[in-house]
């Protein structure tokens, strides 16, 4: 009884089993959740990026719009970088900057695993056949571009610094006076913290601080840093999700305050 299958596990000389997989567990739940969460985030982020409103209310700025680099940014929303883009940019200023965090996440080793499995089904699950007839992985355009992940990582660090400054500025009150703290302060602080954890646990960060070394003993400080980043790296997936939710919730909070839907509650 020769197998009639030619692709995948039905290749000649292998055990002839017609089922694409024999898994009995609910292996499809994880990719399904990933699709639902990521599609929801993409829809929300796209809507907010194009909305071009309700992204700033002193002292809070949405992470989707920071740094606000165009002259069209609402008064007070631009950070220490000012408005170098000028007046010619008339559409949403979020579109100027979102390529960097988007690129960082799109080329992230963890997210790659997630979307290759859940969106591209390559493979949809371990030992579950993929539907594609040919496969070249990350050897050709456009996927060979995943190798620029480290550049997005370094760009992401700049954003982390700017968003940390935004969180510090949130210790002001609505009149611009220092020494106050609100729920918004906590939201922006949490967002910046999650983003730092996500960035510092990055595989490219791990490589840059010491992973490329062959002799740790000659570089004790870098070895120490590599050890620390390696510890964080074990939780990279967790930080990837937490920081994604963090950014969306921080934006939602700022939008809610800026639109007047809720009031930013001050502790002092």
């Amino acid at each position, binding site marked *: *009884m*020769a*197998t009639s299958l030619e*692709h*995948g*596990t039905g*290749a*000649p*000389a*292998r*055990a*002839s*089993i017609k089922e694409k*997989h*024999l*898994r*009995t*567990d609910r292996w499809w739940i994880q990719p399904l959740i990933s699709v639902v969460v990521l599609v929801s985030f993409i829809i929300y982020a796209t809507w907010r990026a194009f909305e071009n409103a309700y992204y700033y209310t002193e002292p809070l700025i949405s992470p989707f719009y920071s740094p606000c680099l165009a002259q069209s940014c609402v008064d007070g929303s631009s950070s220490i970088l000012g408005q170098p883009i000028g007046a010619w940019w008339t559409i949403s200023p979020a579109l100027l900057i979102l390529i960097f965090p988007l690129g960082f996440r799109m080329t992230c*080793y963890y997210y*790659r*695993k997630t979307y*290759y*499995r859940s969106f591209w089904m*390559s*493979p949809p699950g*371990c*030992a*579950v*056949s*993929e539907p*594609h007839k*040919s*496969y*070249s*992985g*990350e*050897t050709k355009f456009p*996927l*060979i571009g995943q*190798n*620029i*992940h*480290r550049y997005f990582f370094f760009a992401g660090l700049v954003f982390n610094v700017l968003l940390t400054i935004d969180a510090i500025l949130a210790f002001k009150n609505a009149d611009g006076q220092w020494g106050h703290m609100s729920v918004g302060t906590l939201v922006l602080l949490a967002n910046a913290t999650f983003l730092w954890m996500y960035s510092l646990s990055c*595989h*490219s960060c*791990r*490589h840059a601080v010491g*992973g*490329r*070394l*062959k*002799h*740790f*003993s*000659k*570089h004790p400080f870098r*070895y120490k840093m590599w050890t620390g980043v390696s510890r964080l*790296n*074990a939780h990279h997936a967790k930080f990837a999700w937490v920081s994604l939710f963090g950014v969306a919730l921080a934006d939602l909070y700022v939008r809610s305050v800026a639109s007047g839907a809720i009031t930013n509650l001050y502790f002092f």
Partner: protein
Amino acid sequence: MGYLAKLRVWRGDKSGGQLVDHSVEVSEGEVVLDIIHRLQATQAPDLAVRWNCKAGKCGSCAAEINGRPRLMCMTRMNTFAEDEEITVTPMRTFPVIKDLVTDVSFNYEKAREVPAFDPPKDLAPGEYRMAQVDVQRSQEFRKCIECFMCQNVCHVIRDHEDNKEAFSGPRFLMRIAELDMHPLDQTDRKNMAQEEHGLGMCNITKCCTEVCPEHIKITDNAIIPMKERVVDNKYDPLVWLGRTITRRKSD
């Protein structure tokens, strides 16, 4: 406290085969390999199964249990419900020889393609001296028992037979990483990993890590670090510039 387990075992050879239903007695504390042996002893004396240590250290009894690559000797029967049907098949990436036994020679061919450890020419065996921190990264990979379940589950070759020539699979990419990270190895294996062993084909979906019975972090600790090292060599102009200016070959 025994019960009768419902077992479906693939029987056949490269000319064809099928899943055959069996009902086999199970006693407390047993593993799937025990049940396969009981099946062989009581109902199917011609059933072919490869096994050796029964302790999860030789990798011989790798198979697929309910569709997941597992060592039969390390899969306890009490992880299944008593009325659950348990399907046991050979590994589906390699040519089958008979029943649960596959021909894993693909892996030995790939092993031979990886250049051996290349110590400094002026050091004789016995004169190697290494700091523990330098060698400990490679030591994780030495835990590999070569069960080849990572090779079996890797979709690059599992789903694409035509990739077997170009892709060495996670076990041997890990071997390359082990040697590239070794403090005394003199060969630069980065371009080799990309161009001759298909590192770029890996899309880091981590199934190799999920099935490893030794819990080696194959993807995070071997394959991704090798990908980053390849980026240094091939795709990062700033690293190239830095190395050119400082005339530094490696760290």
